[in-house]
């Protein structure tokens, strides 16, 4: 066997698999998106973007990502640093903190619905304490701020752990000697975090952020459970086009728009956190 061809031969099964189950459906979706009225056109894109709900759902998706991801990043960094410092019980804490990872997004939405709905925990607690005389419907059009907050909370609760896991692994890869050197040369704990941990964590931060941001643009089930139609998001609209309006072309166009946004942000993150050549651990 020629050693030059061996690597290609070895990746062939995976490549075939991906072509069959990923690239091929993707091409079909793309075809569907660019196909309307019996010919190639951008009509589907024009239709979906000119719909009155598009700017709202676009803005909502972006706002949610902008509110949730930075909080998750900060929380995940804090938790990861704390876990890394821990001597005993570290694994136990990590397991507990990652429990939400095992819960599906719809289930997470329902859990938080049980808290916020009219007959939910929050209302029972507040009326029990005498703060309100009768249950308030938090998740209604009268309280858009609370709807947003509930969705953001549920998302933060549900999906911070995925960043945490990646960052804990990344911090574990940073040799202890760098911290000792920084300490000897006068870096305070905060400076050690900003001057050593953060820069050396760039590869992990990249992965965590890309993954998290893409997932944030795909938010759907939590919003459906908590906000319903009160809080339209891009993925929800895609679903509506496909299954309520039975407009496959429009749904495909929406899917491609979400993909384009994801790719754009991925490139921005990769660029912003890139590690110069020769500067890796």
């Amino acid at each position, binding site marked *: 066997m020629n050693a030059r061809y061996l690597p290609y031969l070895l990746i062939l099964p995976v490549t075939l698999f991906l072509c069959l189950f990923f690239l091929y459906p993707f091409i079909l979706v793309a075809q569907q998106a660019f196909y309307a009225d019996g010919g190639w056109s951008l009509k589907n894109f024009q239709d979906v973007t000119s719909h009155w709900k598009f700017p709202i759902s676009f803005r909502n998706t972006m706002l949610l990502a902008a509110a949730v991801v930075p909080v998750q990043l900060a929380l995940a960094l804090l938790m990861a640093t704390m876990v890394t410092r821990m001597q005993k019980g570290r694994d136990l804490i990590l397991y507990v903190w990652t429990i939400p990872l095992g819960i599906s997004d719809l289930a997470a939405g329902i859990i938080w619905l049980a808290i916020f709905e009219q007959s939910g925990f929050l209302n029972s607690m507040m009326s029990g304490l005498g703060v309100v005389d009768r249950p308030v419907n938090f998740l209604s059009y009268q309280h858009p701020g609370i709807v947003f907050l509930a969705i953001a909370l549920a998302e933060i609760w549900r999906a911070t752990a995925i960043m945490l896991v990646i960052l804990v692994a990344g911090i574990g890869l940073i040799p202890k*000697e*760098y911290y000792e050197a920084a300490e000897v040369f006068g870096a305070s704990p905060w400076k050690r975090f900003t001057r050593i941990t953060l820069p050396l964590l760039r590869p992990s931060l990249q992965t965590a952020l890309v993954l998290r941001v893409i997932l944030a643009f795909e938010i759907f089930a939590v919003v459906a459970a908590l906000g319903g139609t009160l809080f339209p998001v891009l993925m929800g609209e895609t679903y509506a086009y496909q299954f309520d309006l039975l407009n496959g072309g429009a749904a495909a166009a929406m899917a491609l728009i979400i993909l384009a946004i994801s790719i754009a942000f991925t490139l921005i993150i990769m660029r912003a956190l890139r590690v110069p050549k020769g*500067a890796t*651990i």
Partner: protein
Amino acid sequence: MAVIEIKNVAKRFGSYQALHDINLTIDDQEFMVLLGASGCGKSTLLRIIAGLETQTTGEVWIGGRRIDHLPPKDRGIAMVFQNYAVFPHLTVFENIGFGLRMQKLPNDEVKRRVERTAELMHIEQLLSRYSGELSGGQRQRVAVARALAMEPDVILMDEPLSNLDALLRMEMRAELKGVLAESNTTAIYVTHDQVEAMSMADRISVMHEGRIVQAASPIEVYRDPAERFVAGFIGNPPMNFLPAEPTGAGQWRVAGQTLKGPDLNRPLEFAIRPEDMTLSDAGLKAKAKVVEPLGAHLLVTAEVDGTLFRAVLDSDLKVSPGDVLTLAPTPDRIRWFDPKSHHAVQ
């Protein structure tokens, strides 16, 4: 003035006693080498001085000031780490200037000091590179430059040359010694390489199982080992030992021969360095086992009275395995050790 005083320092890791009651004074601008086998506690002692480890008991003083409760940055020290710890995400310039930046020195002062130390270490052309683009030797220079740029009172080095190849090591050894001699710093240098220790040190502290067994000049450590361990550790090949029985006032019986020694009436151990013997008519009978011509001299591994015994002889001699040599020890180079306490006996 940076005299370092280590007073009764002990360190325990759980139930393991890594250091026992260390007492050591290092003079201002002295180059002190901590020498010992792997695991004897050299790094632990150095890290206690640096403040990266806390001693279980004892005190550390630098320049007349007790510093063992201070954080590393307030101790007036700089350190060169065993694996360099050159920050991979910073350029050589920023690495050397790291400590200066932490002190918030103005930019032009940082630049001046980084460039001066870089020049001293011959790495001025590497300033814009990252550590991933440097060879081991260059990285090592960066680590030293980073420490020197701090203009510290004390510089601590933990086996800084251990990852270099033999040739580069020899080169860096001389260079490092030269640079430090000019810099007026007190240096503590950890190594397990005795050649490095002998060639660089003003004084060597030989460590063994968490204790300092001898702290003296290289030549004294070599000629007059305070303990049997030092005698067996320093020198390549190490000292030879033979049991000795007293036979009268200052008379000793060693491998069937009578030798002059201390006036004591209990068994001792006779010790002699392999190069301190000559072929003669009277002396120890050694049966040659292995003969190694090493160019400059001839290393003969032999057996004396059933004990392994090495001799370094003139390379012109013709010796074959099986020959019986008569080796006369040079009288003033003979040393005696107490077989119980392992201390040297005068």
